[in-house]
């Protein structure tokens, strides 16, 4: 048999994996007896790797995992805008993965919506109706943003939040421009916020 480093490595790998017997590599073992220790160590390391690493893992929040993929695909398919780059998503998603409560996720979506509104042009005609895309990471919460001509306001609604006690004070968010806003609490669907610009 022609010996070459590559050929020897092949034989030794197969021997460690039990495909070749000691007799099949006797020439190599004679030349380097420490190979027996390598085989023992390699098999022990393999056993340790199988103990500590899994070929399959349960994906945390599997349904949400699937939901996000679907949403991202649909967003990219439905808009002509350049898709959000992976780097930008990577900066945003880790924040969402840390927000475990439904209220926390919905609150974040609401803040994102408010920040989005502050970026809008100040001069908006009464007939300039613009639907701003709003997104709630929690699939049980629906976020909508609609310009209301009659009210002369952009209405942000979050539907699906857990009901909260109307006696509670809601703190933490204020509109940066024209801080006139109404918080309306709905017992059935949770918190509604009307922001007037």
């Amino acid at each position: 048999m022609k010996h070459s480093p590559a050929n020897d490595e092949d034989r030794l790998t197969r021997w460690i994996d039990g495909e070749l017997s000691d007799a099949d590599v006797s020439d190599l073992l004679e030349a380097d007896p420490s190979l027996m220790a390598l085989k023992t160590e390699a098999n022990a390391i393999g056993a340790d790797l199988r103990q500590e690493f899994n070929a399959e893992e349960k994906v945390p929040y599997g349904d949400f995992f699937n939901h996000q993929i679907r949403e991202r695909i649909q967003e990219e398919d439905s808009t002509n805008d350049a898709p959000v780059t992976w780097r930008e998503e990577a900066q945003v998603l880790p924040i969402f993965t840390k927000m475990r409560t439904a209220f926390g996720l919905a609150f974040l979506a609401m803040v994102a919506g408010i920040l989005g509104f502050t970026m809008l042009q100040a001069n908006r005609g009464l007939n300039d109706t613009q639907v701003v895309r709003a997104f709630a990471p929690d699939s049980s919460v629906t976020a909508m943003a609609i310009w209301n001509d009659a009210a002369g306001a952009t209405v942000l609604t979050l539907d699906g939040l857990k009901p909260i006690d109307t006696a509670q004070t809601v703190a933490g968010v204020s509109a940066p421009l024209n801080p006139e806003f109404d918080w309306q609490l709905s017992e059935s669907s949770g918190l509604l916020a009307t922001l007037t610009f």
Partner: protein
Amino acid sequence: MADDTLDPPDSVLVSRCQAGDYDAYDELVTRYRGKIYAMIYNMIRNDADAWDLAQEAFIKAWKALPKFKADSEFYTWLYRIAHNTTYDFLRKKSNKVGKDEFDDGIRRDMVDAPTTPREASAPDEQAERTDLRRTLDAALEKLSPDHREVILMKEVEGLQYNEIAERIDVSIGTVMSRIFYARKKLQESLKEYRPS
């Protein structure tokens, strides 16, 4: 995973996907997300990044589905996309860290990154297992992604040489050479932990 052992087979779901049926793709995602997530997590040892990368891989796969010709199994094809996505990530990390050696591309703090809580075991078993895991992580970190990947595929997934070669699109000889090198390197790294 052989196509014909699954119900419905991957080939049926893929055909439906290529006809625009997203629900069929959702089923494929559910079927393979655990394996893809595990592969990526084992490579980079950070659950948040593994989550992102796994999603990225599935999104890329959806976009590339029209070009999938079924000359390989769907999971093998999907695995390659996930493999490339992971390598791109590691390359970017490596460039950010500014090290010359690819092997150093993974920062040590990622080894201790918080992981998803797993099922609890006895405290002493947990401590010992954590110690072993850290030791193995440190040893694997010293391997290049190429060597790390093949040794995990061989030892953890139990793949044959030809299966590994097909998955990562290299020759069997390359696979065997990488396995041999990875074992030698791990033996050296774990010498203190396992005095012979």
